[in-house]
């Protein structure tokens, strides 16, 4: 008998080799107590959270918590059903209304996770004779959406406007085309030139989907994302987003102005064949989304934090994913996995939690320490973080 697990042997060995050097397992951290959006107890130690995507710090917002508790009492712990059967309660509809208000769009569909929103919309929209043109650094959920469907997949070099245009020109003019882009690419924290790309996509008759998971709530005058910031939101056919970052809970969505959008509720399998979100979750999301519409001051403070951390780490001599701060993600490039893991552990010992990201999730085989800032990080906390990076960098031998 062939052991079906043997395909994982190289990964098992890499992991064992890494742990045998005495390093803590970076992928099995447990938070024993969460004190606030920016602080938790990890291994009994008070730790600054710098890797949670909790950009707007809504997880402990009193109004958000109250809405969730009320819905929990009034509607129970869960729906035990699909959105199209017994799983749509009034809080689900209200959450979709909140999204329509937030984006100023006609339609909104809530999925159980952001992953499922991409999986569902992409696999359903493009069929065998259609083309999906996507950035090579797209998120796993976008690739999995492609794999679940059967469209023709055409990748282009990351953020390369000319590469996108060349490919669109070579495709049959009459074929259905969906161009898939992200506002912020979460590994390096860089943003896409959406304005140029969307103009080109439209000139070639393509529909456009933009995943704004890492920009919602923060980027753009009203926090609608990079497309809003670059003045092209009205040309985006589908915005995909998540509740598990700025919104502060869990869930995913798609908003659109397409007049036939509602038919997707009947044909989109990752929407139909799964249970809907618990009513308490959609109630917290709706409250959070409506508060994010008026969060200009928090957005301004988060930008300050992002600029401060970027400059501080750059001045210390760390190599960063972007030349300038472009989002709430500051990515620190590590020389290799071993030193990346050592630096991750040293940071944790100094009371800072960041994400360790490694291939295949990262582009070009890089090992990254991904820092995501929060609007609730104080300026003093950011100063503190920079100081602890300096100390940890010396311990891990990453800073020269």
């Amino acid at each position, binding site marked *: 008998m062939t052991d079906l697990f043997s395909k994982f042997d190289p990964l098992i060995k890499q992991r064992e080799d890494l742990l045998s050097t005495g390093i803590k397992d970076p992928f099995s951290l447990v938070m024993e107590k969460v004190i606030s959006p920016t602080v938790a107890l990890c291994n009994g130690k008070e730790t600054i959270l710098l890797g949670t995507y909790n950009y707007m710090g809504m997880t402990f917002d009193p109004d958000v918590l109250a809405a969730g508790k009320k819905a929990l009492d009034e509607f129970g712990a869960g729906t035990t059903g699909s959105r199209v059967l017994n799983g749509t309660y009034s809080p689900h509809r209200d959450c979709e209304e909140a999204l329509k208000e937030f984006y100023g769009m006609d339609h909104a569909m809530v999925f159980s996770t952001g992953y499922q929103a991409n999986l569902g919309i992409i696999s359903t929209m493009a069929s065998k004779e259609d083309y999906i043109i996507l950035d090579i650094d797209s998120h796993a959920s976008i690739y999995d959406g492609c794999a679940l469907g059967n469209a*023709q*997949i055409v990748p282009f070099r990351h953020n390369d406007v000319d590469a996108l245009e060349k*490919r669109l020109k070579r495709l049959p003019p009459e074929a259905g085309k969906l161009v898939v882009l992200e506002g912020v690419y979460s590994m390096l924290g860089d943003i896409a030139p959406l304005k140029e790309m969307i103009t080109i996509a439209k000139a070639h008759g393509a529909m456009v989907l933009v995943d704004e998971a890492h920009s919602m709530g923060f980027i753009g005058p009203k926090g609608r994302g990079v497309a809003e910031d670059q003045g092209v939101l009205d040309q985006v056919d589908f915005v995909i987003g998540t509740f598990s970052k700025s919104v502060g809970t869990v869930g995913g969505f798609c908003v659109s102005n397409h007049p036939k959008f509602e038919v997707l509720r009947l044909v989109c399998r990752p929407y139909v064949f799964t249970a809907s979100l618990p009513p308490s979750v959609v109630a917290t999301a709706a409250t959070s989304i409506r508060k994010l519409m008026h969060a200009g001051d928090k957005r301004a403070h988060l930008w300050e934090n992002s600029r401060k951390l970027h400059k501080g780490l750059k001045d210390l001599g760390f190599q960063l994913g972007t030349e300038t701060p472009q989002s709430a993600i500051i990515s620190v490039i590590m020389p290799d996995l071993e030193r990346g893991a050592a630096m991750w552990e040293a940071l944790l010992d100094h009371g800072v939690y960041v994400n360790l990201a490694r291939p295949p999730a990262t582009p070009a085989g890089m090992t990254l320490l991904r820092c995501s800032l929060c609007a609730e990080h104080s300026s003093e906390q950011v100063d503190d973080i920079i100081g602890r990076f300096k100390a940890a960098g010396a311990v891990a031998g990453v800073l020269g």
Partner: protein
Amino acid sequence: MDRAATAEKIAELIEPFNKKGVAVTEATTFAGDLEWDSLTVMDFVASIEDEFDIIITMNMQAEIENVGQLVDTVISVQDN
């Protein structure tokens, strides 16, 4: 362009990416013999696409393991 000419052009385009100096035949595999990672594959596919003014979708790429199969694919895409 006949098959031999297409194969010759493709062999030429492989060389800048042939860091190990492998002797390339139609049986040479991209992952096994040339040991290309996904980034190299992307750059190489882009150079083929630009040279022949075609698109090689990821669906097609998944079926291509060796140089001979790539030559066949390029010819069949051009014919369409």
